[in-house]
């Protein structure tokens, strides 16, 4: 381990240009995030509205 900033250390094995790059991994991660957020949103209903009696709506 020497320098944080040396370019030789970047480990790049191939150049991928704009047209060859298809960010499917990003799509997969973002879909997972949306599923989690949606699930939490539904969960909130149970935790707050059904769990704690009357509340201000």
């Amino acid at each position, binding site marked *: 381990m020497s*320098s*944080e900033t040396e370019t030789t250390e*970047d480990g*790049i094995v191939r150049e991928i240009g704009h047209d060859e790059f298809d960010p499917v991994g*990003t799509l997969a991660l973002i879909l997972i995030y949306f599923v989690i957020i949606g699930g939490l949103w539904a969960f*909130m209903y149970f935790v707050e509205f059904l769990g*704690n009696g009357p509340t201000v709506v």
Partner: protein
Amino acid sequence: MEVFANEYPDEAWVVRAALGSAFVALAIGGLMGLIQTLHRTGFYDSLISNADYYTVLTLHGVAMVLLFTIFFLVGFFQWAITDSLGRKSEDIRITKLWYGMMVLGSAMSAVTILGGFVDSGSLSGVEADVLYTFYAPLEAHPLYYMGLAVFIIGTWIAGFDWFRSWWAWKKENPDERMPLRTFMVLTTMLMWYLASLGVAISVVFFLIPWSLGIFDSVNSLLTRTLFWFFGHPVVYFWLMPVYMMWYVIMPKLAGGRLFSDPLARIVFVLFLVLSVPTGIHHQYVDPGIAEGFKFLAMTNTMFLLLPSLLTAFTVVASIEHGARQRGGEGYFGWLTALPWGKPAFTGMTLAGLMFAAAGFSGMINAGMSINYLVHNTLWVVGHFHMTVGTAVALSIMAATYWFLPKITGREIFSRRLGLAQVLLWFIGMVLMGNAMHRAGLAGVPRRTADPTYDQVIYDGAYGAIGELRFQIALGGVLLSLSLVLFFAHLVLSSFDIGERAAATPDSIPAPLSGPEQAPKVLDNIRLWTSIAVVLILITYILPLASIVTDGGGWLGDSYGVIVAEYVLPAVSSTIDIFVGVVA
């Protein structure tokens, strides 16, 4: 090309000084944080009295979110401007002047806050236990407000300094596109000018004269609304430099290129346009502001999710590009090809991950009706320790591992130590942040030295309250340990020891989709600023007018609007006439 520190020694000096000030504030704030967690959970509450808790809390809030974040920002932005335009400061004396003013202002405010610990002697009347939100009816020593004013004017001059560099560059390069980092700095500063106007008016026209005894009272709701006019957009002032790190540094560390320069510009334009006209979402439960105005603020807030979602996409895609260039494959396999050994990369990724989680509690806060369930509870504290306390603070600490060699010319001490530090922060915050959210749901209030009451038994949705207290205390201790590692690292890096090599020059790779793809109108910052102003007028003119007319005039009544409603109208019209004479 040379390392920044050697190419621009004067500018690098200011950057180092600003970072130094930021880290001093972080150290002080961290110590206060530790005291708070242990005190309010009951694990160690004999160090300070319950009354002094609010002095500690004020110091923690001011040191963390006003001083630490903003000092780091000005240092980082100075680097961004100098490096991306490739030119020295137009007049280094001005650069040093604004830094000096910020230090002076901080010192003035800090003295008054520290005065809160002293109950006798010459400092006994000097105190500022008003928390970092400092609106009336809480009142501080005039020096506290004056210090804040000097600090803010310092940041305004800094913005002017950076605009000057840009104007000079533009003259010499009339046909070139504004560099991305310059674009980010200038849009952020324009947002800041609009936002800080609210707090400047509140401090200069109301709080200072009031604390000097020139006015007997001020309209509390007015100072509160003016604070939140600034108090929401200030979170973007913390966040936008961090977005710059994520857009500019992370792709580089991952071995890739920024996915899209135009998208990055759009995100900053959206922040400029939408940041300010949302502040009323902090006042959903305030009496004296009509529901309709609150609804408008909520709508703008929901639109503000857009730039953060765009950022999630752009940044993750840029990192994925790096991973694929490093040989990564598959839908998820590319994640293993990322440079997890670099503390700067790992730290910023963890910070981003925490931010994604905090996005959920943010959506809860933003909803007008659901907000009632969490308002002023520990939930909110959990939320902002995951956003500003981690997404921002951890990104800053992590980025420092990359940034320090540029501005000192020396490598950092040890990657492994850096990795341990960022990981410890993340774990500590998972514990503290999560437990705070849950405690808030159970009804535990924020800003409370001793949140136990005879008649109240907290009823957790699941899990016992004792377990939550333990997690909050343990998380706080881990966070403090992480800070100790961070500071030890800074000290060790400044000696000639460790796995060091001289820092090597470094450049930011060109984006995959460059600025030539971005429509020219994006750089028309005058247009975007005007739209921002129009939106601010639409959202604020009417509520402010009704706060002044219904709340007992510009100076209201120091016991708040509720009381003011019962005060003789004659009194308020006399005050109006008085203001007419003064102004």
